[in-house]
């Protein structure tokens, strides 16, 4: 093969329209994620290495210092009450936290950090128009339907959809098309999230990512409400109004609550609501239905208020100095 470049190389290179595709926003997202990972590692290292060392030092001081001077004999773990110490508590310092739910942003392209639930009406396409590659039926003899992966003639992309004769009867065998791509490790569950009669379909849709579809019937249409980074999902009636909300933990362990507000599924980023920094950890306890924000210095536990979009402070726990000089 000749090493000489063809003449048309020059034409293409001169008219390069793809400069600046890696935008400033993308760079910013990368930096934020790298920083986030760095803090997570630091916290992890602190807990694994530094914390035991610090704890051992502390124990030593408790044993030795009282013998030599009038320093504190104990650093008790104080429960409840406000912090009077100079150390920074995690996140917001107020008692209760109002939750201002946001609807999904009106964007054609879902940004990397966007975790909103969006909805779409699924169209039914005849099975005769596609080549089926894989069918995964839900447990219980197809009780909740089937996941169907297929190809379309002339299109290199795989497509997938949901097949159910439970919702709508049709003389034509068909599949409700969800989109292009494919899921692996597919799971079905019955779900009443958001007050709909749902089937919840979720599966692995990328490296370290699971996508979830709440599929329901509305006025003879099949609707999919979907969230695209739901590593763990808990469906609970948090505010006690009889309608189930969804608490979702993303792959990065960020916590979101999704709620049906006047027919629109809106979301709240719990980290943001609690004003958590990268150093703080926010967790959800599905048994107690509590949200907890923790740093190495303090933790606060919240429960969703009955009938209100608010997190009520249940408990504040902090490590404080208590003794005499």
């Amino acid at each position, binding site marked *: *093969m000749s090493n000489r*470049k*063809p003449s*048309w*190389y020059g*034409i*293409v*290179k*001169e*008219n*390069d*329209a*793809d*400069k*600046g*595709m*890696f935008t400033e926003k*993308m*760079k910013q*997202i*990368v*930096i934020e*994620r*790298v*920083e986030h*990972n760095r803090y997570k590692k630091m916290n992890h290292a602190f807990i694994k290495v530094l914390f035991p060392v610090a704890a051992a030092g502390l124990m030593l001081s408790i044993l030795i210092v009282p013998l030599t001077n009038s320093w504190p004999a104990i650093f008790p773990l104080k429960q409840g009450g406000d912090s009077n110490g100079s150390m920074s508590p995690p996140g917001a310092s107020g008692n209760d936290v109002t939750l201002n739910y946001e609807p999904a942003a009106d964007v*054609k*392209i*879902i940004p*990397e950090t966007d975790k909103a639930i969006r909805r*779409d*009406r*699924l*169209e039914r396409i005849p099975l005769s128009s596609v080549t089926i590659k894989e069918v995964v039926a839900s447990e219980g003899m197809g009780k909740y339907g089937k996941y169907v992966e297929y190809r379309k003639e002339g299109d*290199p992309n*795989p497509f*997938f959809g949901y097949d159910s004769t439970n919702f709508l009867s049709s003389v034509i065998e068909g599949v409700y*098309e*969800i*989109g*292009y*791509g*494919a*899921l*692996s490790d597919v799971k079905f569950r019955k779900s009443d999230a958001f007050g709909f009669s749902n089937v919840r379909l979720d599966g*692995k*849709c*990328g*490296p370290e*990512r699971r*996508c979830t579809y709440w599929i329901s019937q509305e006025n003879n249409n099949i609707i*999919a409400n*979907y969230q*695209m*980074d739901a590593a763990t999902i808990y469906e609970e009636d948090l505010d006690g109004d009889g309608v189930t909300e969804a608490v979702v933990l993303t792959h990065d362990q960020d916590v979101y609550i999704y709620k049906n507000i006047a027919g629109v599924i809106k979301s709240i980023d719990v980290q943001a609501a609690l004003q958590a920094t990268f150093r703080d950890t926010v967790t959800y306890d599905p048994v107690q239905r509590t949200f907890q924000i923790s740093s190495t210095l303090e933790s606060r536990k919240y429960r969703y208020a009955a009938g209100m979009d608010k997190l009520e402070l249940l408990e504040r726990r902090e490590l404080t100095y208590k003794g005499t000089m």
Partner: protein
Amino acid sequence: METEYLKDIDDVDSTELYNLMNQYGDDVWRYAYAITKNKEQSKDIAQEVFIKVHSHLHTYRGQSSFKTWLFAITRNIAINEMRSGYFRKVLLFGNVRNTRTEQSAEGTYIGIQGAAVIRSIIMGLSRKLREVLILDLDHELTIQEMADVLGIPQGTVKSRLNRARKKVEKIWREMENE
């Protein structure tokens, strides 16, 4: 920016990472696009590449040029994501249909422009041919570097590149004669 020093360090700070993204971000995106043919997916892949660069820089020890190493990561991520059906952008049927309509209209519009026509021909090639041609045309990798990125012998790179160029020329000629 000189990247020789990267083989001797295990970590880069945010400023250095930002500079690397300035220097290579578009190249990585373009290569991901050559593989996936999906602009939005390529954005995600390109971002993932630099996150990997940050966390795995200690594994780069100058065994190839930094760009070659970067492209090998890009290729791995892009192919893995295609295999696992990474489609979280422009996902649902309505959106897919809209996207295609736009692409089609755009394709008609740019059809009169030579560079865009050639680009569209390249993007219509099979992935094997498209990939090697983009690495040569856009990124000017040597045959050895392309072989390293693709994990194939140099002879195969030459043969694919030759086929790719001829195919583009043939289709372009046919289109001009229409």
